[in-house]
């Protein structure tokens, strides 16, 4: 397959852009932006080529590129390698990532270059590395490689969030982002190591993959249990399903960190300190998406464990609601978007936990479009507002920034889940899948709980989204800047336009709510994902869910239409509420009426405080105590031994009095002692 020979280039192109910008950025046109655009453009073209090739019926492609640790001959050890795996899922994700990245590069011309920022080569180098890491993560063919690029994604987020390192807030936020996600990755790494130990491989693909081996090792599987797995299970003394649940949850730790799920979501709002295009990239296509993508990638493994799935669903549902409540009270534009991101990824997790593999990928796709759009739109507003992000200082921008307004509105409608925008279809699919599996499965209570959270969050989502829209664009201008905003150029408007169109129409790929009408076969994404690689497609996952997790979809009387109507209705309630509260020319800050509840929400339920407390009031004192212990006791013993030696040395010196008669006496005494001892011992007398 000649076409797949070019697959590595998808990631390598941005890497080259990174190197170019880092070392030669000063001499390049637009300080490296052009190189980045060219590279991501190339990646996009190649990704699309892959997508089309697969769509035309090519088999998924797996290939080991480079073995960096070869297990020695004759030793029971494993190879560590890089490889690519292009299937329906990864090809789709590659397109999303490279597209968003391309648009972000273009947008950056307006946001960074036109604003006269310094350090641009570093910025574009960071973007290039970020894109490279994410693309490589997406087409990884094994879990270790995934982990490696997962971590690199974390590094890039550090570099880009902390781009304005001269200020304290960005560098602090960058630190927090890396550290919190690192905490999650700690569990992920244990998971990777555990997978190695259990299966001797971390490959995703094929009969020898850990996913397939795990399936075979489950009780009730027809295939023979692989020897290496049963040996290992003997060592740890757990049953297959117990151990796989443990491993799955360990890997989930990384997912929760990167995808900003409760309780490791706290880094994400802080990460707004980075440049806005970076926020768009992080939230829509790269870092945060990585977590969800990982679960989807190894969904066959999770499908074996109802416990893990239940936890995923519950965490997701809870996060969706939890983050939405906080978004209600935020005053900065990007803060609202940040919490909405957390909330939306909660939906995706809910879908994955609820057996909605396709729904999750669907929502990932639509969200990528509309969230990138919203961030870039916010970026446009921020340019216009001279980097003032407070919505209460805005108002009435719709007339002065029509393109931004129109596209932003499209994105908001999608986010709120209003028919027929993209978000409506995908969010509905998420809720529907969760509901039917919750109703149809034994022990589906967790799913139903998650569903309830998700449904409630719909109202809040619509409310905060349109609160944001009304405050920013409607009503009267509340400041001078808002009266006369700075104009933005084509390089801002073009990405907005592209994404605006996508946010409106991309739902068409999977019109699940009306599948009874258009026919199942016209659910393109569903069809697409159900025809993946052997053992790695939606169809197989459904079987696994049924066989091992006990998931069964309940038949609802009205089909998917009734739940869709419910969620649409709730969304409209939210929009209406927002209009009531903030639709006027000079809206009041109604949220103030919430009093202490608002304070709690503004302070993010004091979770940041809790984490700071953990770091400053628990860890730091423990470290200080350890240091004192080390200096005082451990080193004290060392120094003490030396002091005691020298002191006793002084005592020994005292014996030497200088008086010769004393010497004679001591000499006699010594000899007498010897004589006495040996006389008694030898029995001389």
């Amino acid at each position: 397959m000649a076409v797949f020979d070019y697959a590595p280039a998808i990631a390598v192109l941005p890497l080259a852009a990174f190197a170019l910008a880092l070392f030669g950025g000063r001499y390049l046109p637009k300080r490296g932006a052009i190189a980045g655009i060219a590279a991501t453009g190339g990646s996009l073209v190649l990704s699309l080529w892959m997508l089309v090739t697969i769509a035309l019926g090519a088999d998924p492609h797996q290939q080991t590129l480079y073995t960096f640790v070869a297990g020695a001959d004759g030793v029971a050890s494993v190879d560590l390698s890089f490889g690519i795996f292009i299937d329906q899922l990864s090809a789709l994700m590659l397109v999303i990532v490279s597209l968003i990245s391309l648009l972000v590069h273009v947008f950056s011309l307006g946001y960074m270059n036109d604003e006269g920022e310094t350090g641009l080569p570093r910025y574009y180098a960071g973007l290039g590395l970020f894109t490279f890491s994410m693309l490589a993560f997406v087409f990884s063919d094994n879990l270790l490689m995934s982990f490696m690029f997962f971590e690199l994604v974390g590094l890039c987020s550090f570099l880009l969030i902390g781009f304005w390192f001269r200020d304290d807030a960005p560098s602090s936020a960058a630190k927090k982002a890396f550290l919190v996600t690192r905490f999650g990755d700690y569990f992920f790494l244990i998971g990777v190591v555990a997978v190695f130990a259990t299966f001797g491989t971390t490959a995703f693909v094929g009969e020898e993959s850990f996913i397939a081996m795990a399936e075979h090792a489950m009780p009730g599987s027809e295939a023979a249990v692989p020897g290496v797995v049963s040996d290992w299970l003997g060592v740890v003394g757990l049953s297959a399903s117990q151990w796989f649940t443990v491993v799955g949850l360990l890997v989930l730790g990384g997912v929760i960190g990167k995808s900003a799920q409760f309780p490791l979501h706290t880094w994400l709002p802080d990460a707004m300190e980075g440049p806005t295009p970076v926020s768009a990239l992080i939230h829509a296509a790269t870092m945060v998406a990585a977590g969800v993508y990982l679960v989807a990638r190894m969904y066959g493994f999770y499908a074996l464990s109802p416990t893990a799935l239940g936890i995923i669903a519950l965490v997701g549902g809870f996060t969706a609601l939890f983050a939405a409540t906080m978004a209600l009270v935020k005053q900065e534009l990007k803060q609202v978007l940040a919490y909405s991101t957390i909330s939306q990824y909660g939906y995706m997790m809910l879908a994955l936990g609820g057996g909605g593999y396709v729904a999750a990928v669907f929502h990932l796709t639509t969200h990528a479009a509309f969230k990138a759009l919203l961030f870039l739109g916010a970026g446009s507003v921020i340019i216009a507002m001279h980097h003032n992000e407070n919505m209460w200082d805005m108002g009435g921008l719709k007339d002065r920034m029509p393109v931004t307004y129109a596209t932003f509105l499209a994105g908001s409608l999608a986010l709120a889940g209003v028919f027929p925008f993209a978000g409506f279809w995908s969010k509905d699919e998420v809720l529907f899948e969760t509901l039917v599996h919750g109703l149809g499965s034994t022990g589906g209570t967790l799913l139903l709980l998650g569903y309830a959270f998700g449904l409630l969050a719909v109202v809040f989502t619509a409310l905060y989204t349109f609160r944001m829209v009304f405050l920013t664009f409607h009503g009267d201008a509340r400041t001078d800047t808002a009266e006369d905003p700075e104009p933005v150029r084509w390089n801002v408007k073009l990405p907005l336009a592209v994404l605006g169109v996508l946010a409106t129409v991309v739902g068409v790929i999977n019109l699940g709510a009306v599948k009874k009408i258009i026919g199942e076969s016209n659910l393109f994404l569903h069809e697409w994902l159900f025809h993946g690689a052997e053992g790695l497609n939606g169809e197989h996952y459904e079987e696994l869910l049924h066989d091992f997790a006990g998931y069964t979809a309940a038949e609802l009387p009205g089909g998917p239409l009734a739940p869709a109507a419910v969620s649409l209705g709730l969304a409209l309630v939210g929009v209406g509420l927002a209009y009531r509260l903030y639709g006027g020319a000079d809206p009041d800050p109604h949220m103030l009426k919430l009093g202490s509840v608002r304070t709690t929400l503004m302070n993010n339920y004091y979770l940041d405080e809790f984490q700071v407390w953990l770091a400053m009031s628990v860890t730091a004192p423990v470290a200080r105590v350890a240091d004192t212990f080390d200096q005082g006791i451990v080193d004290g013993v060392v120094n003490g031994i030396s002091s005691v030696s020298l002191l006793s040395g002084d005592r020994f010196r005292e014996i030497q009095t200088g008086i010769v008669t004393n010497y004679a006496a001591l000499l006699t005494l010594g000899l007498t002692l010897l004589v006495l001892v040996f006389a008694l011992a030898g029995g001389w007398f």
Partner: protein
Amino acid sequence: MVQLPVWTAIAPTVILALTVLLLLVVDSINPDEDSGNLLAVMAVIGTVTSIAVTGWYLLAGTGQPPTDPVLLFADAIVVDGMSLFFTALVGSVVVLIVLASYDYLADHPYQAEYYSLVMLAATGMSLMASANSLATAFVSLELASLPSFALVASLKHNRGSVEAGLKYFLIGALSSAVFAFGISLVFAAGGSLGFADVAAAAADTSLPGVLGLGILFVAGGFAYKTASVPFHFWAPDAYEGAPSPISAFLSSASKAAGFVLLFRVFVEAFPQTAVAGTIDWVLAFQVLAVVTMTVGNFAAATQENVKRMLAYSSVGHAGYVLIAVAALTTDANRSFVLGSGMAHLLVYGFMNTGAFLFIALTEYWDVGRTFEDFNGLAKQAPFACAAMTVFLFSLAGLPFGGGFLSKFYLLMASVNGGVLLLAVALVVNSALSLYYYSRVVRAMWLEEPDGTLEIQGYPTGLYAAIAVAAVMTVLLLPAFGPVAEMANAAASAIV
């Protein structure tokens, strides 16, 4: 090849004795003239000749396996590997001392007496190495001691020197009385003085108590000579007060001579098999070794005076060498263990002499004696200080010189003998010694000079002696093999 008469086996000692006579003759012919130059050259020539003959014998295999030891004068004197080894050792130290004394005594009266006393003591020491009877042992030991008393006190107008001489003499007199009484008791128990006869008689003596007491008293005599506890009290004071070359002489050569006698007497005259029912002297030496090295090193640790520190460390080294007899258990590889002490003494002869000669150099410069006085000395005299660093680190057992190998040889010996206590004590003391030796290094290299020090002149003789000692110390690292082999071979002949 011409077969020399048998008596020529003792030629090295005889040559030393003749040198004494020659020196006295020269002096009596020309008593007033300032002839330090000539005297020193004569002494060096005499000693070098003696060493050369010793070396020749050593290489020629005189008295060494496979031939029998050469026994002379009714078995009163023996020439074998061990005696030759120690004669060479003593001779080497004497050469260094004489070279250094040439500068040290530049304005000193009575140089002829000084040199002849040194040579006389050297004769006594080499005779100690050849003693094969308690009578010879006693006489040679006193022959070595009496000139030493005078030498220590030879700076007649220096109160320190006189005080040192007094203490050395008084303790020496007391110890020789103890030694003599011990010999008399051994004689009482067996009726003979020759080592072999004593051993033979000891096995079935009717007076085991008297024998045991005698053995302990004899051990006391050796403890004095080797500056071991509890007969060590004279050593710090004497070494500190004596002229530095003499301190070097006493702490290296005299100690070595004491040890060779100790080795030979205890291994040949009181073999464990013969005295098993009477006294377990290995145990006694274990106690003495541990106590000696501990007392020496701990007292050295906090000294303010460098020379006194070296004096105490010399006591500590006596404790180390005692391992050679203390680890001489029945399970041990006996020649290996005994050889360790001999090898250490040889290396010690160079590095310790060198260290004391460096002190002589600083006395020559009037640097002062405390650690602070040595501050920044390396900036003024880098070569001398480099040599001193070699000596000190070698003494401490770092691989700067043969002291490294010999100390670890001793450690091996303690393990070989299965006496863990000795090994532990050696480790602890060695660590401590590293601390105080490095204090000198620190003063010389790490500290800044206070700026008042002016060094006047670089005395050739002293420098030459220090250089030779340093080169020998370093060379004994790669060339430790022949030394150790020789020591082992010599030891294997008597155990």
